[in-house]
């Protein structure tokens, strides 16, 4: 049985920058638990010799040549941006972090 606690949900919410009310945390903890349990059933059928799958298709080494292809125009690139200035994407004040 996979368990997900209220604290786990609170931490995920913080990491995902989603503001959640206390009631929502309780609610989601039980809902996410159900989802996890459903997915965890896969583990019951996978043997020791089956590695976790990240890609469903048996493909590897898919490459492209190092060739330049046309980019978008800056107008097109910025067309869906909520705001722009000086041909750049404009974003609200960045809080509390510096890269």
């Amino acid at each position, binding site marked *: 049985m996979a368990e997900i606690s209220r604290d786990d949900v609170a*931490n995920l919410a913080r*990491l995902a*920058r989603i503001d959640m009310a206390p009631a929502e945390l309780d609610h989601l903890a039980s809902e996410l638990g159900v989802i996890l349990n459903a997915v965890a059933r896969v583990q019951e059928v996978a043997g020791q010799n089956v590695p976790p799958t*990240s*890609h469903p*298709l048996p*493909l*590897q*080494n*898919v*490459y*492209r*040549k*190092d*060739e*330049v*292809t*046309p*980019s*978008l*125009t*800056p107008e097109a*690139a*910025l067309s*869906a941006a909520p705001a722009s*200035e*000086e*041909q*750049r*994407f*404009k*974003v*609200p*004040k*960045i809080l509390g*972090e*510096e*890269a």
Partner: protein
Amino acid sequence: MSLKYEDVIAKYEPVLGLEVHVELGTASKMFCGCNTIFGAEPNTQTCPVCLGLPGALPVVNEKAIEYTIMIGLALNCSIAPFSRFARKNYFYPDMPKNFQTSQYDEPICINGFLDVEIDTDEGIKKFRVEIERVHMEEDTGKSLHMGGATGRIHGADYSLLDYNRAGIPLVEIVTKIVPGTGKYAPEVARAYVAELRDILRSLNVSDVKMEQGSLRCDANVSLRLIGSDVLGTRSETKNVNSLRSVERAVRGEMIRHAELLNKGERVVQETRHFQEDTGLTRSGRSKEQAEDYRYFPEPDLVPIVPDATWIETLRAALPEKPSTHRKRLQEAWSVPDKEMASMINADVLEIVEATVNLGADPAKARGWWLGEIARIANEKDVTAADLPITPKDVAEIVALVAAGELTDKLARQVIEAVIAGEGRPSEVIETRGIKVVSDDGALMAAIEKAIAAQPEVAEKVRGGNLPAAGALIGAVMKETEGQADAAKVRELLLKHLGQ
């Protein structure tokens, strides 16, 4: 009053770790075909893939993988038979996708080493820097923070993003902890980055310009009490944009840590930003709380399983190692160890070599770059390579001196003028009217004038007192404003006085 470096190393042992990011010199980006030209107009090199638009599918640039394997091989790494990309999730607008495509627990190259040498009072010392991993990722966009006075995030009202750089292939090279460097930690850090840069340049995989950010170094430093095996808390210094800064940043952090520890305070685990002007660091992001990037395998990119023959073909084609190349140059030029080390330390070896390749005598080329030009560079607090004088200029000056058309003194004037932006050597000589006065008539006139002014000295010389001629030669040099060849003046003068 800050603590003296000697006091720091008398009590503490530095523990060093270095992370170097290198932008690869591919024509197109890591996962899309956008151009990678530095300094292009903002947002002219973007597409749905690097802007993270819905439904866009990335595809790996084969050249970038090839370059990364070459770097791994040159650093004596094992190449992983299987590796994957992962999503590193974080919230910062420098990546429009809200994650960076990187590698997590399966890097392409692991477990290598790089040997570096530093010149010390106790002779040349060799250190082995072990490489933990070399992995692939993508560079981020560039932010401008607007509205604040400082251009920094704090105090800014909003930020502007240019995603031309987002998605340019980036390789991260991470060392293991470098033990046993003792007081030489700053020099070892610098020598490592310098050697790494030379290797990357020889591989031709990056233009390795620290000032443009295509080679960036993060220096991790912690201190432990000598004799103790308890590691101290580390700080991670970013924004270190030159070899000299690498050395200054490590030394500065060692002193800062020691001051805190001596006062009984603790070192905060955080990123620090190096300040080029003061050589100090300022506090950045705290790393006290464990970061959680929620890495998971990138579903849109399939695993990399490099073919063994591909790896061996790349290995066989590796260029001569910079260290071997240096040994060969040293022999060819017959340069003593000490002077070789001076050239490496002043970072002029490559320009000296370029100057020699343009026909200059190695000793002369070395003399100018390590002498007059290094002196001016020092005065301006930059490196010789940053000055606006080229190997071609110096080769031209060396040739003019050899042909007797410039004296060393005039050559120095020409060098100063070239650096001051007065043009190429030939232009400087032309505009300033610099030339060696070799016209015997003009020299004889000056000699006769000097003799007339100091007849008693001339008499001494006639009488066989040759050292006395110095005063007359000096007068002639003054009269010709230093443009005469002193040896020629001496010859004419002595002949004229019957010697």
